[in-house]
């Protein structure tokens, strides 16, 4: 695999989660639990692939399971109007716990179930999900900025009253956007567990969902800039890994590991000068 393919492959899980978070934030929902939904997707993908032998079924299972988690988030944020950050935190706890319990239980009865066949490479060493990440950059931009649906999504996060006045349902926009976010996070988890890797390990998302959340802000809520940010982050990750493999690092290894995060923080600090989040982001009273 060439370096470019490597970078795109490592960017895909984060990037796909970014798309989900982006849609969610656009309609005004703060999604802290991208991480948890990715984790659920990662496990579902491996188990379903391992049982059916088809990675395609694995991806569908990942989407469905993560969407169920998103539906739970919806019940608490949209119906009960609880604080988004608190619900997201609880959902993350739940995801880590449930995937941990289920993976152990399943492995006890079926020792090989957490190993699955990876997605086959389709083009230049990239698998279907990696390619999806790239293809979606222009598609998502077009949907969000050039269609009625995109206008509705943006209006829901910016001026929900106007959406209601125009005869559309703010609740429906938020509900389905949140489910879409779940679906993207499920795919992102699959891109990790049966894309990059071929098994499930505890907490294997390793905070990629949180990084995605930061990259959305770095990318100014634009799919294009977010994807570029994701590729930048992935390049650092790949660089760091290759430096470690070559054993020629002038920095202490842990600092090298922290470097992508430090730069994300720096980008976060500089990106916000001219942008602001959707106006009704995280506001629970307006529906």
């Amino acid at each position: 695999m060439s370096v470019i393919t490597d970078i795109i492959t490592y960017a895909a899980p984060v990037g796909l989660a970014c798309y989900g978070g982006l849609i969610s934030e656009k309609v005004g929902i703060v999604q802290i639990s991208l991480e948890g939904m990715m984790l659920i997707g990662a496990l579902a993908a491996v188990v379903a692939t391992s049982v059916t032998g088809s990675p395609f079924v694995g991806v569908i299972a990942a989407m469905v399971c993560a969407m169920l988690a998103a539906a739970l988030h919806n019940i608490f944020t949209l119906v009960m109007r609880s604080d988004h950050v608190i619900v997201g935190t609880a959902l993350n706890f739940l995801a880590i716990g449930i995937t941990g319990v289920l993976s152990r239980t399943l492995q006890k009865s079926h020792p090989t179930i957490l190993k699955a066949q990876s997605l086959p490479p389709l083009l230049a060493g990239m698998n279907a999900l990696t390619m999806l990440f790239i293809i979606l950059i222009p598609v998502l931009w077009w949907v969000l900025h050039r269609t009625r649906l995109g206008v509705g999504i943006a209006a829901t996060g910016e001026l929900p009253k106007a959406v209601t006045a125009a005869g559309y349902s703010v609740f429906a926009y938020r509900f389905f956007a949140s489910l879409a976010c779940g679906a993207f996070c499920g795919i992102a988890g699959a891109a990790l567990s049966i894309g990059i890797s071929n098994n499930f390990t505890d907490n294997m998302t390793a905070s990629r969902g949180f990084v995605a959340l930061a990259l959305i802000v770095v990318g100014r809520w634009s799919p294009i800039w977010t994807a570029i940010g994701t590729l930048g982050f992935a390049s650092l990750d790949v660089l760091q890994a290759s430096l470690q493999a070559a054993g020629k690092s002038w920095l202490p290894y842990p600092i090298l590991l922290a470097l992508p995060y430090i730069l994300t923080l720096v980008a976060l600090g500089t990106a916000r000068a001219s942008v602001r989040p959707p106006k009704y982001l995280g506001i629970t009273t307006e529906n």
Partner: protein
Amino acid sequence: MMQRAALSAGISIAWMFIALATCAIVVMIAGAAPLSVAQALIHGATGTQYNISNTFVQTIPLLITALAVVIAFRAEMFNIGVEGQFLLGAVLACWAGQLAVPGPLAIIVTLVASMLGGALWSLIPALMLHFRGVQIVLSSLIMNFIAVQVVAWMVRGPLQEAIREYPQSDPIRAGAELPKIIQGLQLHTGIWIAVVLAIFFDVLLRRTTYGQYLKAVGSGIRASKTMGLPVSRILFTTVLLSGALGGLAGGVQIAGVTHFLADPYSKGYGYTAIAVALLARLSPLGAIPAALLFGALTSGSSAAQSAGIPVVVLQVIQAVILFSILGARYTAQRILRSDSAGAPA
């Protein structure tokens, strides 16, 4: 009035049953009998003198970090970076605890250093919020990941033990240790620090101008600004204060329990603290029983592990408790509102 109290108590109890039932189902999925797991949990938390001591030992860092969360969340500052502040507090405490400081001063220097460590770690998110408007929830979280690597670097570099064999630090000097309360048990005097802090912050929040400001800012930033409150200064101070508390928790852990730094250092106290603080409904005094509950769960879960239950079940229990609280609050609001709509009080 009596009816309302009975009603909200009933709602709480109903949700408690829902929570218990959910936990029992998860335990059964994990392939164990709920009753024997409950027994193992209770025994692990309270069964022997050692277990009781361990419950309190686990409670201490949870209580202090929960106070850090309470203060920040009161102002709607979602500092979920307490974990990182805890780690940096531990790093600085470990460094300061090895300095040649005479007598009882050593403990004070160690703990103050840990508070500085935590405050400095939260200074970056505070500055980013103040000057760039970056949400605390993001910046403080990213700081956690960096903090983990700082600890990893410290125990392999600047703070590594003199013989440089393992990735861990040398122990702090005996004078910098927090004394044990009972000979032979792990329980240390940090418990008094934690309880006194809870009382202190209860008074601070209820009886001082700062507490009133915090309340105002928490219920509406824009309104507070219109009222002429120094909102950004209050937020800045609150984030630093929260960070200092998180750091102190790390310092108390070094001085009271481990006496040296290792990698990884935290069991995720800073994250559990969020659950503790929310269970306590952001009340400093309420954080005492809430932290005790989670301390008992942590202490008990190691025993439950021998009953065939993976420790991750603890995370499920945490989540179920959080969701139940949210559910209970919602139903209580709904029922009480429709109640008062029928008969305006």
